């Protein structure tokens, strides 16, 4: 634990135990999503599926990056990851992004993907709200992740016919916002 780091956040009026629990739950959501997206991605095949494979892969890699970026903050604030990975899975802030019964149903695949991203957008918006002006480092991190989650949501929502989102798929490096936390 980084003692003064935690004390500063407490003194700003943040319930640090609750915040740490939320960070752990969101870290669990990231790592489990990374796993479930692996299965979704390998099943995105054929004429329609192939077009989604690239963005699903980028979203997958960025979620793993989000997990990596969250872990140091959890420990700085005095938290820790559960010993048992099954327990970690079950405390995820988002429901499992399970492969649809019929993986050739592209609409069902997209729905799973977009719902996972929407859950993430909600979760990080909430963490930003809790920490804004109080816990600057967690806020900066949650905002960086939120920026990427919003792009993920946009990519998938366009394919669901929800209209243009103004985004293009990632060019160049992954995690343009979160990468500073990974160095």
């Amino acid at each position, binding site marked *: 634990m980084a003692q003064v780091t935690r004390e500063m956040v407490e003194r700003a009026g943040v319930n640090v135990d*609750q915040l740490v*629990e*939320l960070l752990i*739950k969101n870290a669990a959501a990231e790592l489990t999503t990374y796993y479930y997206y692996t299965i979704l991605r390998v099943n995105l095949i054929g004429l329609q599926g192939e077009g989604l494979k690239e963005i699903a892969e980028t979203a997958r890699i960025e979620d793993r990056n989000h997990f990596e970026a969250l872990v140091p903050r959890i420990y700085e604030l005095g938290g820790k990851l559960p010993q048992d990975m099954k327990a970690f899975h*079950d*405390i*995820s*802030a*988002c*429901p*499992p992004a399970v492969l649809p019964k019929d993986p050739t149903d592209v609409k069902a695949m997209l729905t799973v993907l977009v719902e996972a991203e929407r859950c993430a957008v*909600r*979760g990080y*918006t*909430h963490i930003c*709200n809790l920490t804004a002006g109080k816990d600057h480092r967690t806020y900066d991190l949650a905002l960086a992740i939120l920026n990427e989650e919003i792009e993920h949501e946009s990519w998938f929502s366009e394919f669901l016919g929800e209209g243009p989102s103004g985004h293009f798929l990632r060019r160049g490096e992954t995690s343009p916002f979160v990468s500073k936390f990974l160095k």
Partner: protein
Amino acid sequence: MRRFSKEELRHYNGLDGMPAYVAYQGKVYDVSGSFLWQQGLHQATHAAGSDLTAALKQAPHGAELLLRFPIVGILDPNG
């Protein structure tokens, strides 16, 4: 439809095999089936067995996510 007093509702906290019920705008919903309400706890901030009408205003989502769950009763406004 079953009427719950606040006191009765408190028992449905999702612990020790009890179902997880939450009240919202006078109706009682059964969220036991939700992955996000295991042990009656939601997002490290909310617990089942209580009236969460006010709490939902602070949530990063609206009532639509709750309205999909079965209604099991109404919350007695007199207690």
